[in-house]
């Protein structure tokens, strides 16, 4: 078991190297450099040139790459071209916001999707199933941004039930006050996001249950005299949750990086919004750092999924 995880971690090393190389080359190809932003009509071009030389921008690419990687190890992701603060601190703030939003969204997604999937699978081809399927088609077909904007307009602007921007109210104070305010800001985008994110899970679970229901081992369980509701929970449902558990790792990291639209619609100061902002502001250092982080998260997500899978499915378990 530990060996497998260790081996998977080792496999990640070359993956990370390739990822960092790609990200670095991408960054090099982008126009501008740390000094572009400091240029104003009064700057002496020679001075800038000297600064660039001093910063090593004329070194061969691999020297620059290794320096960049070295900085990465020291937690230095560079300085934002636009905001002139270290990218690390820029991201740290946002990462915190996004993390909590993602966690809430994940919890909401599963607490909506799993009951829906079970209902649909259990009552296959009955009205309950039809209902869930209709819901699923709607969430599948509706583009996220349309849904979010509609929600924002209806519940935020018109009814005023939820705040329409930010992550915490400026005048919240005390631990509970801040926590309450944070939750109040998060809950609405999280619900909207979760509703859209349920599609895959509902569909996987429904299909899993429908397929497993007719498996021979379920018939065997029944032939042993196991009551029907136990057959369902112990045999059918458990086995149907397998693919969902397998996606858990990817889901979590996917949410971390994939919340761009919801965050920008709700002006929620998270990583997704930061990413979109850095694109529109051409803040390439931040952008590069974010791409690198998202890439690493994806790798970690895959690793998590593999580990979860090898824990719950004995057929994959490696001795």
């Amino acid at each position, binding site marked *: 078991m530990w060996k497998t995880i260790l081996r998977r971690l080792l496999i990640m090393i070359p993956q990370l190297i390739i990822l960092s190389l790609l990200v670095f080359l991408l960054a090099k190809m982008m126009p501008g450099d740390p000094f572009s932003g400091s240029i104003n009509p009064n700057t002496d071009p020679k001075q800038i040139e000297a600064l660039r030389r001093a910063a090593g921008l004329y070194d061969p690419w691999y020297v620059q790459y290794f320096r960049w990687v070295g900085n990465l190890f020291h937690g230095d992701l560079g300085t934002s071209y636009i905001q002139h603060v270290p990218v690390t601190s820029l991201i740290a703030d946002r990462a915190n916001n996004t993390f909590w939003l993602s966690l809430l969204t994940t919890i909401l997604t599963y607490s909506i999707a799993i009951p829906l999937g079970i209902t649909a699978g259990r009552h296959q081809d009955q009205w309950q199933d039809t209902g869930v399927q209709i819901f699923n088609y709607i969430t599948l077909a509706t583009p996220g941004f349309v849904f979010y904007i509609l929600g924002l307009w209806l519940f935020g602007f018109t009814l005023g039930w939820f705040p329409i921007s930010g992550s915490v109210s400026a005048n919240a104070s005390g631990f509970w006050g801040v926590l309450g305010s944070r939750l109040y800001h998060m809950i609405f985008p999280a619900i909207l996001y979760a509703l859209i994110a349920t599609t895959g899970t509902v569909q996987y679970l429904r299909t899993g249950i429908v397929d497993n229901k007719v*498996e*021979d*081992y379920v*018939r*065997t*369980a*029944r*032939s*042993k*005299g*196991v*009551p*029907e509701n136990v057959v369902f929970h112990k*045999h059918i449902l*458990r*086995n149907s949750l*397998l693919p969902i558990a397998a996606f858990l790792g990817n889901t979590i990291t996917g949410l971390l990086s994939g919340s761009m639209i919801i965050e920008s619609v709700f002006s929620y100061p998270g990583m997704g919004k930061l990413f979109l902002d850095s694109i529109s502001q051409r803040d390439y250092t931040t952008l590069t750092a974010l791409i690198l982080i998202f890439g690493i998260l994806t790798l970690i997500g895959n690793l998590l999924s593999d580990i979860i899978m090898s824990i*719950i*499915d*004995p*057929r994959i378990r490696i001795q």
Partner: protein
Amino acid sequence: MEKQSDLLLDIQHLHTAYRLQGKFYDAADDINLTLKRDEILAIVGESGCGKSTIASSIIGLYDHKNTKVTGDILYNELNLVGLNESLFNKIRGDKIGMIFQDPLASLNPLMRVGDQVAETLYYHTDMDEKARHARVIELFNQVGMPRPEEMYEMYPHELSGGLRQRVVIAMAIACKPEVIIADEPTTALDVTIQAQILDLLEDIQRQSHSGIILITHDLGVVAETADEVAVMYAGQIVEKSDVKTIFENPLHPYTRSLLNSMPQSDDTDEDLHVIKGTVPSLKNMPRSGDRFAARIPWIPASAHEVEPRVHEVAPGHWVRCTCWKTFHFEDEDSTQKATAASGE
């Protein structure tokens, strides 16, 4: 041979119909069978003949919405047809054990095999966890599994086909059922493993005095293990007798044709016997007349009964329709006396 009081199952006028596009069609049509203690009853026939339908009707495992079961299946005076589910769950696994064809598919891939056997005990005995574990080990020993303690912890995919089927058998016999239904228990196994599993079933039966219904398509398996045999064609029992009579003096044209199509002869140049035509599908099953008539077209219609019934031609030997009296193979001279044809 058997005492009448040892009757375990008495199936009378069983009809099991499946719904296909809104209409019900009989997949098992007027089945009459009895199973006695210490008896192996083989139900033999080709795919789609309704033999597995009988098994699922007995144990009550079918899609209740799309299946209609009528008639009586009496188990110790208790009619299993229409029995409510919670009562049926007390019987399944406890009084009636079931063994299926594909041992890998029959086991839950995510559960340790020992726990799967213990599950049967959980629902039918008062044993605590420790006692159940001990009983599973005892069962694993009984079905001839090496290193039972180790086996308990295994997952189905870690076992060979033969061992898996032993687990399934251990599961079926865990509560010492009086009736064991084995639906093609050796079809997915190699011949040498098949022989071992069949021997095991016989041993279990001898020890527990249970009755076994053995459902199979393999005439060899029937000849080696069965006491009584029912031959099925197109949802009906066409011939029923003790095993010796079925193989040494078969009468129904279908039984004879089937035996004849076995590759048994030493002569490689000789063609195997082929039964003309194909089995009609459930929807196209003839509603009246002899269902096998279309496959022996050289036999005149007058030889068949209009509504073929089952006749007792000798004590305990039942044959459907009267066409057997004049039946001969197509290439045989019709004046030749129809003799026992077992391919020899």
